[in-house]
Each structure stands twice: as C-alpha cells, then as structure tokens.
C-alpha cells in the first residue's frame, strides 16, 4: 500500500489519534495534488490563500441544489455565511456581528462570563462522589450548547430539547454515521428550524435583550438579513460553534494531562490559561483543515498552478506545526512568544465565534485544573471521532481522587 497518498493516510481513521507525523510528510510538498484536490500544508502559503480573493467558499452542491447540503446549515435553508462569498457573506456577517461584537455590541460575549462560570461550576459539582468521568459527555459537550442557548436567548426550559436537536445535527457530521443518523439530522433540522422561527416571531413581538431578539429587530442600517438568512445564521452559531468548542476543551484537557507540569502550573496560576489556550489552538486545533474551497481562477503558489475550478484544502493544523514558522513546533509551550496561529483560520472567514470559544475554553480548563484532585488519563490515546477535519476525542475518560469545592462557593 505504498501508493496511498499522504493525504489519504491522513483521512484514514487509523491515523486520527496522531496525524502530526503525516502532516510533516505532507509539508515536504507545500501544495500537493491529490486526485482533483489541491492540498496546501505550509504556513506561508496558507496565509496567502486565506487572503486571496480568487478563492471562493461557495460549494458546488449549494449552487446546484438551491438548498444546502453543508453540515453547518439546516435543511431547506440558504447556506450560512461561512459558505458564501462577498458581498453576501460580508453583509450577513456584518449584520450578525452588529449584535455579537464590535462596533455595536462589544460587551455581549464578555457579559456571558458570569453565566458561563456558573455552568462550569455546576458541571464540575456534578462530578461529586465519582472518581471517573467522561470529559466529553459529562463536561465539554453540555457547556457549548448551554452557552449558545444563553447567547441566543433560548428559554431554560427548552434547553433540553435544544440539546437533542444539536446532538442529532452534530452526530450526522460523522461520515460513518449512516442513513439513520442522516434521517435524524433532517428531522431535527426541520424541528429546530420551526422552533427557531417561532422563537424569532416571539422575540419580534417582545424583544428580550438576547442575540436572537437583536437580530430579528435589526433596523437594517448595515444591510438587511432575510428571515431564512437569520435562521441559517442562528443554526450556524449552534452547529459550527458546538463540535469545535467541544473538541477544543477536550483536546485541552488531554494535552494538559499529557503535560502534567503544565497542568500543575495552571492550577497554581489560573492566569496562565490565556496563553495556554492560544498554544492549544496551534498545537491541537479543533479545526484541522478547511476541506473545501474553490479556485475561481488559476492561482500560482509555491511553484504550482492551482487551476481554475479546483478544490483546495487548507490543512491549518499542518501549517501550525511548520518549522519554517514556529521553532520546535512539536513542543507544547504556552510561553511561546509567537501566537500567530491559524487555529481560527484567517481572512474574511476568520471564526465568527472565536471570542466565545476562547472564553468557554479558558473558564473550562482553569476550573478543571483547579478542582480535580490528581486527574489522570484512563486511556491514551482516547477513542477519536471519525471526522478528520473537525478532529477530537469521542470520549475522554479520566480518573481523579475527588473534587475540591469551587472557590466561589
């Protein structure tokens, strides 16, 4: 099987736990053709392409089918802005950003800090009396969905329904999930869409200070967003911001347990979580690659011409281990001065929810570090999810001797 390309081996599930040696092999050819796809793996080239207007994020099936097949969008809705190009992308993202961050709502995410802290405290309190938990199911999974409910303004009593839809949608992202899961995804998608639409109507009648109220009552000063676009955007926030944050938190705990000295330093100095999360985004990013961008024109890069119409895959996680950019790239070092990682991508599609993901992960990891007594891995490596692009453990079983009370209680 010597013929199998490096990229195919990266996609192979048996290499999911540690794709990094394969990334090193991939980087030997910065732009490599794999079947019809052009795979880019070096830092400089990826940064160039992230800022290259000749690259489109629109998927062919979106254009052909009218509806979206992308996992970030709900059935029957237009593709979310992550799959659109300027000017539509810019307009929708700008309207959404008006109510999520600067210039108009700079305090929205920071304002969630207290609520998110409480959720984290509650989840860890739930470990009481146990000596083994699954970091994924018992912690990293419930946190982002609760966070997004708080952000959007989903009433607490509906959160459990919301969580069921979210898991059904996320479950189907896994290519091995099969037809039953896909059927559940479509069903959940339609239910979620109807739910969000109803909630939007309610918020239109009586706004309540949350993101959905703000979006639905937007005055259109920065351009209008249709109801379908609004529902697409809301579901994007839910789905795209969900799996990725789960993986970031889980990868973080896994990395800390593999680097006990760092775990110890974090326990003694919670402020370290800030550089630590940035290094984590470089070292074990939840989004390993942007699998599908399209060349709108011939693009010359690193001695290769990517032809018009070709599919381009940007392997962000390989670029972040590029020794041409980061000295000793395979060392996990939160003290690294250079934090210019590509963990959130770059250019106009830079992760919309990055500030929220950072906040959640910072709160999560500092709390886990300070409250778990003598935590250790049950299995290393843990079992991984199928997905090579949104890579992360399916479960992360850990043992500990007990939990210390939250400093706030």
């Amino acid at each position, binding site marked *: 099987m010597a013929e199998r390309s490096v990229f195919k081996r990266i996609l192979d599930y048996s290499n999911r736990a540690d794709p990094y040696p394969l990334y090193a092999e991939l980087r030997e050819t910065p732009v490599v053709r794999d079947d019809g796809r052009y795979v880019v793996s070096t830092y400089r080239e990826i*940064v*160039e392409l992230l*800022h*290259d*207007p*000749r*690259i*489109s994020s629109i998927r062919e099936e979106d254009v052909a089918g009218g509806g979206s097949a992308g996992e970030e969008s709900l059935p029957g809705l237009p593709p979310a802005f992550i799959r659109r*190009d*300027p*000017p539509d*992308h*810019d307009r929708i993202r*700008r309207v959404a*950003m008006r109510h999520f*961050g*600067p*210039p108009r709502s*700079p*305090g929205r*995410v*920071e304002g969630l800090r207290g609520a998110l802290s409480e959720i984290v405290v509650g989840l860890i309190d739930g470990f009481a009396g146990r000596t083994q938990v699954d970091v994924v199911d018992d912690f990293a999974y419930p946190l982002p969905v609760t966070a997004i409910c708080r952000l959007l303004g989903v009433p607490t009593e509906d959160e459990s329904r919301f969580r069921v839809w979210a898991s059904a949608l996320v479950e189907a992202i896994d290519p091995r999930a099969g037809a039953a899961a896909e059927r559940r995804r479509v069903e959940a998608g339609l239910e979620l869409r109807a739910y969000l639409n109803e909630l939007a109507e309610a918020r239109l009648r009586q706004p309540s200070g949350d993101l959905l109220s703000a979006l639905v009552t937007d005055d259109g000063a920065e351009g209008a967003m249709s109801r379908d676009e609004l529902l697409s955007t809301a579901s994007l926030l839910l789905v795209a911001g969900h799996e990725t944050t789960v993986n970031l938190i889980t990868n973080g705990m896994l990395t800390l347990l593999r680097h006990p000295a760092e775990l110890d330093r974090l326990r003694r100095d919670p*402020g370290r979580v*800030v*550089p630590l*999360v*940035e290094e984590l985004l470089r070292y074990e990013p939840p989004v390993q690659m942007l699998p599908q961008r399209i060349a*709108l*024109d011939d693009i010359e890069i690193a001695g290769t011409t990517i032809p*018009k119409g070709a599919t381009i895959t940007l392997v962000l996680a390989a670029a972040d281990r590029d020794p*041409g*950019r980061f000295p000793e790239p395979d060392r996990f070092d939160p003290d690294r*001065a*250079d*934090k*210019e990682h590509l963990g*959130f991508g*770059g*250019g*106009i599609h*830079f992760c919309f929810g*990055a*500030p929220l993901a*950072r906040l959640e992960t910072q709160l999560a990891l500092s709390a886990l570090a300070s409250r778990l007594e003598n935590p250790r891995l049950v299995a290393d490596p843990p079992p991984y999810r199928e997905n090579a692009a949104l890579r992360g453990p399916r479960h992360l079983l850990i043992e500990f001797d007990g939990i210390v009370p939250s400093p706030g209680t």
Partner: protein
Amino acid sequence: MRVVVDLTRCQGYGQCVFAAPGVFAMPGQEALLYDPDPSDEQREHVLRAQAACPVQAIHVDRLAGHVPGPRPYPYPAADAGDGFRRSGRIVIVGASLAGVRAAAVLRRDGFTGSLTLIGDESHEPYDRPPLSKQVLTGRMPLDHTTLPRLRDLDAEWLLGQRATGLDVAGKRVRLADGREVEFDRLLIATGARARPWPDEAEAALDGVCVLRTIEDATRLRRRLETGNGRVLVIGAGFTGSEVASVCRELGRPVTVAERGAAPLAGALGKVIGGIAAEIQREHGVDLRCDTTVMGLDADADGRLRAARLSDGTTLEAETAVVALGAVRNVEWLEDAGLAAGVWGVGCDAGCRVFDINGVVTDDIFAAGDIARFPHPAYEFQFLALEHWGNAVAQAEIAAHNMVSDQTRRWAHLALPVFWSNQFGINIKSVGVPTFADEVVIAQGSVAERRFVAVYGYRGRVTAAVTFDQAMWLEFYQRMIERAAPFPPDFAMVGRPAEMLPVPAEVPPRIGVAQGATVVVTGHDPSERRATLVRRPQ
C-alpha cells in the same frame, strides 16, 4: 501599563475589543481606537487581548520585542570584530518613534556600549497617531500617549536639547547649549515638524493651530472642547481630513479648504480623492476644493475672526487648523556635508547616509521621516515616507546595521504601508499610490464605501488602497512585489460588475506643501546633483 498597536499589521479582526472592551474600540467596521495607557485594573483584559490578536499586532510594555517569523538573515547581528557591540558609543539624534525604536532594538540585539538619545521635546517620547484621533475627540487623556517602557532602557536621555550641528570628521554632535556629544556611530532620526502658516503674524493669532506635537494637541483639544464656532481646516491631506472628522464627531461646524481638486488627492490621486470628498460632505463637512486661504483676520484682541478665501468669500471661523504637511528637520545638518535637503537625508537601503557627493558614509545612519532611500520596486527612486510603520521598520534595520558587519546587513525593502481613520472608515494603503497612471476598483463597492482600489503604472500594479477592506491588502502587496500586470483581471469574490481602469490623476510633481505622505522624489539629473540645500526662506 503601556500599549502600542501596530496598526499597519492590524486587519480589523476585532478580537481585542471582545477581550478588553474598556481599552479597545472599533467605532466603524475596521477602524481601531485604543487607550495606550490603560489603568492597571485593565491589565488582565489587555493581556487577553494581546494573546488573542490574530496578527499579533499588540505590544504591551515594549516597543521592540519578539519579531514573529524567521528572519531573512542571521539574527541577532554578529559583532564586527572590533568590540564595537560591547563598548562602542552610539548617539541617536531624535527621540521620537524611530529613535526610541532603534534604541530598543540595539539593546535587544546585544549592544552593550553607551547609548545616548538627544531630543528637542522635553517630554518622554510619545506616540503621535492618536493625537489627531482619540486624543482630539477627548476619548483619551493626553498623557496616555507615552511610548512604552523607556526608563528600563539603559541609555542617557538628553531631552529638551536641540542638536544644532554635526561634525562628521570629528564625530561630534553640537547641542544648542554649546555642549558637544561624541559618537562612534550616529543615527539621524530628527523627523519632521508641522509646516507653519506662512504669514508669521497670522500664524501667531489666538485660534490658529497646527497639529504635530503633544502641545499642539493639547491646545487644539482645549479649543474643540470649549468653543462652539466654526473650525477651518487648511489642507485636506490625512491630518487635515482626520481633524475634520473629529470636528464632525464632536458636532462642530467645519470648513475644509483644499488647494487641490480633492481631499487626499496628493497621496491617493484625484479619483479616490473624489470619493473621500463625497464622504466628507456626507458627514456635513463644508468642503471647498480648488480653494486657497488668502489670509486670516483677527479681532481687536488678536483672536482669529475670519478667513479670506480665494473663491472671494470671507468665512467666519473660531479656530483654524493649518494642515499643510510637514517640514523635515534638516537644518542642523546644513554644514555637515551630508546629502540633506528638503526631502530629508539621503541614505542607502541599509540606512547608511550619503555624503553630499553621493558617497555612502560608514558610521552615520538615518531612519524615519527624515530618511530618503531608494526602493527597487519603484525604479530605485528615492522614497520619503512619513509613516508610523516605516519609522518602526526602518529604525529596526538601521539599528541592526549599526552593529553588524557588512556581510550581515539588512536592506529596508518593505513596501510602504499606512493607515488613516476618518469618518468611521479605515483607509489603508500599500505601495506608492502616486506612482501610477491608472486606478481601478477591483473589489467591493464605492457606494457602500467598502472597496479595494488598485493602482497601476505602465501596465504593472504599484499600489492598492482599501476602504474598510484591509483583509485583502496582503494579496495586493504580493502583486506589487511580483510586478503583476495591471489591471488585475481575475475571477474573484466581491468583484464589481464592471472593472474599468481610469486615469489615476495623481499629481505630476508633488509640491512640498501638498501634504502627500508618500512621494517619489525622482532621480532625474537635477536632483542627483550634489548641491548644498539651504532652508527655503
């Protein structure tokens, strides 16, 4: 704590605003404002913002730290072998951005000899860009502009001391008080000052201001705070336009009188200048182009009362802001025998200064607004730049070369990049827009005030200017570096329905008072001749 954001790198991701909304703000889609001296209770937030910046453009308590990415040449510099790095004497004349940055780089790169900074302003060195923006609006206190961590820098500071002469052979700098300071190597970083209103009596009237120093900003801020009458801005270059923008933000009536056909036309040409004109008028600026201010009139108490304009009208004004560009501080070099003139001090791409005959010197370097250097991307014509980013980059290269032997010297080949915030829009430029015969809107929409303008000269791309589209700038920077064909003809996102290059209408020959911040000063024989340049009388 001290914060400096490298706004030439900033692409408007806004991550700092999320992390520290009390320190950073984005009043528009991209334009970033920040408080460079936040209180200590903001420290945690600022460090979060610094870590989160996707382009690592935020510097906290430092001006020369880690430089991201691998260096093109060996680094740090090797010792020339004569022990200079250990025990040499370096004197830097000019203690503003370029001088201070060079000093910090010298120490970072292991220079342990004696280091002296001479500056004619008596304050601690400060950052100027905020003076025409957040300081003038009152968003930020004046004393917050001090540059970071200078007391830690092991150097002798001669502040409030003006250099008056240079003895190249004797390696001495003369000071106004008669003292002399000896050096082994010298860095000239005396920068520029505001061009005053030409009529001295009128310039002295109460209400006639310029904007360059912290004192200027203090005076103007006080007038904007207390008065309510009309402000007249004379000259619509970047400083004048930013002042007009602040006036409108504060609700003050403002008239802008511009001698040329459009605001910013000296730097960006008449086509993009025309768009800037529309933006000014949309924001309520009384903009008068092709108009010269003939004279300023005072009341009986010596207060500015009115201005007489070339269109025959008389305009009542409470304050006049003279924004006619800068004058380079070269007078102290008049008898030094160096290539110093109205455009600054000529030097090579390695920052070594030319003597009056065009022979390069060994021990005298220049950086910042004062330096004029050949750029290969522009046919080796000499560029004279007045940009924050240029001062920072060139000072680093000058400092490096001052302590490196000839095999390890760096060249200052970075393309010019600058930015301006006005009327809520972030304008960024790469390359030399005045080095152009045509311009085309390549991406975005002029009507929405979000677009990329690409400039070409004889069929190749030479510059790009973005209005609230900074994330695309790097792409065009590479096109300039590769001498890509103009007009760009790609299929790309955000491409307007029609891409029609039009004459750029850049000024054919830039007058020194037109307020351009990038100029190609040419290399025709008349300019290459070594003549002693006297200060224009």
